[in-house]
């Protein structure tokens, strides 16, 4: 992919630049030590720098440059900061230190948080679309496509029922269908491939390949080395919030497999 871009334009155009990025989560009420009311009070009275707050340094000084046409996989063990890094690139998590520069608006594939279980699937499609920044006309145009893609109505008229009545698989399928309905400049996918049954997984993989074609740059977080190998040409390996390796998929995955195999 990268080489193609080289031939077309003669140079590689950066779309995302991360510069010494640090992300720190602040967790209230998780301070180690006694959790009693008196100790909480004493912390308040003492007025420490940040009382009763525990800091979690999730991403520690990560730098990289992503170019147009690249599909980049993010790997690493659980809690290594992959999802956090994605959110920071999307500008959803404020950086503690450092900076992320992007071309256009990177978006995270996912609308789960905007949907409401008490509303019908129908209204959730509209609400989710609006939340992603689609216009009413765009949603009206794509509504049929979203519902068909999700396959919710294959077993009867479920789209007019509240989402709380859906099975977890059905809900996941609808969520993916809504999220994948929009085109993106820089697209980030956080282990979205693992939803639904086999048939739906096939369909969603295909849709992701389509999205990749339309998007300038794709980031994919996954624990599935196979899907990384299938879709990505470059891999970033994060471990404990630090960038451990950055390079072509095969080389990084080989090192990663050696590391996890131990």
């Amino acid at each position: 992919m990268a080489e193609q871009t080289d031939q077309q334009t003669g140079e590689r155009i950066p779309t995302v630049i991360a510069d010494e990025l640090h992300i720190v989560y602040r967790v209230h009420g998780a301070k180690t030590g006694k959790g009693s009311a008196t100790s909480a009070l004493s912390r308040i009275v003492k007025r420490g720098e940040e009382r009763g707050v525990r800091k979690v340094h999730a991403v520690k000084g990560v730098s990289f440059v992503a170019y147009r046409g690249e599909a980049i996989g993010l790997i690493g063990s659980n809690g290594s900061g992959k999802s956090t890094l994605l959110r920071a690139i999307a500008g959803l998590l404020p950086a503690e230190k450092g900076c992320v520069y992007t071309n256009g608006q990177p978006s995270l594939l996912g609308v789960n948080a905007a949907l409401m279980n008490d509303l019908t699937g129908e209204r959730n499609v509209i609400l989710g679309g609006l939340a992603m920044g689609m216009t009413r006309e765009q949603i009206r145009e794509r509504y049929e496509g979203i519902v068909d893609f999700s396959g919710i109505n294959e077993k009867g008229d479920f789209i007019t029922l509240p989402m709380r009545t859906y099975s977890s698989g059905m809900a996941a399928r609808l969520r993916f269908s809504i999220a994948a309905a929009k085109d993106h400049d820089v697209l980030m996918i956080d282990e979205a491939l693992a939803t639904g049954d086999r048939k739906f997984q096939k369909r969603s993989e295909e849709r992701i390949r389509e999205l990749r074609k339309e998007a300038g740059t794709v980031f994919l977080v996954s624990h599935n080395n196979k899907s990384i190998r299938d879709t990505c040409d470059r891999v970033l390996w994060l471990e404990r919030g630090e960038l451990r390796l950055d390079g072509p998929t095969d080389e990084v995955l080989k090192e990663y497999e050696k590391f996890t195999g131990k």
Partner: protein
Amino acid sequence: MSETTHDGTVALSAAMSPDEGLPASRLAARYGLTVSGARPSLAEYVRQLWDRRHFILAFSRAKLTAQYSQAKLGQLWQVATPLLNAAVYFFIFGMLLKANRGLPRDIYIPFLVTGVFVFTFTQSSVMAGVRAISGNLGLVRALHFPRASLPISFALQQLQQLMFSMIVLFAVAIGFGSIPDLSWLLIAPVLALQLLFNTGLALIMARAGARTPDLAQLMPFVMRTWMYASGVMFSIPIMLADKPQWLANVLQWNPAAIYMDLMRFALIDGYGAENLPEHVWVVAGGWAALLALGGFVYFWKAEERYGRG
């Protein structure tokens, strides 16, 4: 793991480009890249917000509908809840206590119910505002939209809730001898001003609540104090007749009391202009403008920081 550089990264990518070695900020500037998640200018922010107007409205409606969707009576509760509220106040103050605090009973009951509904509008906007960001972190961390959408949406939800209460309020006013006339048209500007005021307040509370979630625990007490000081259940000039005039003025010019009094003036036939403080419309408009503009700017100033865990 042999060729580790100082920061623990092994550079496997051998491709060198003319941009290599350029500092990140210069490289970004060269290709027109912008800082992700940076705060837009105020004008740009307003434009983004306007683009999301459909989302704001849809979100507020969705929240309102979701509220009663599990109940058997469903959306009927939108009207039943304020109706029951009014019935409780009628029973306690109208029949049990017979406490009309210097007002004729026919005026006191609609006076009280109006006060309760109008104050509840502000109160619930504040409470929803406190949790607008801190209670929706999942949404804030997953999608892009101007964050002010959330508190504005919650204020709108409360307005829609109040619309249902107004149906009950009209019934109570008519039931106690008020006749719908031209003065009822004043309800629209009063509601518009109060909505502006509430939205501004919700924006301020949203920023404060995002930083200090503890406010959600504290606010009920603040709001209750405010309610008692605003004359929801009594007429301020009558109750404070033997106190210094400035105290009554301060209480009467507080925004909650202003909007309540204006609504009563509009609705209740026996509640005339003599009950209103001086310059009441100016004060009502001033509070609305001050809070709406101030709250909006205050909220926007921290736009890039919402969502930090």
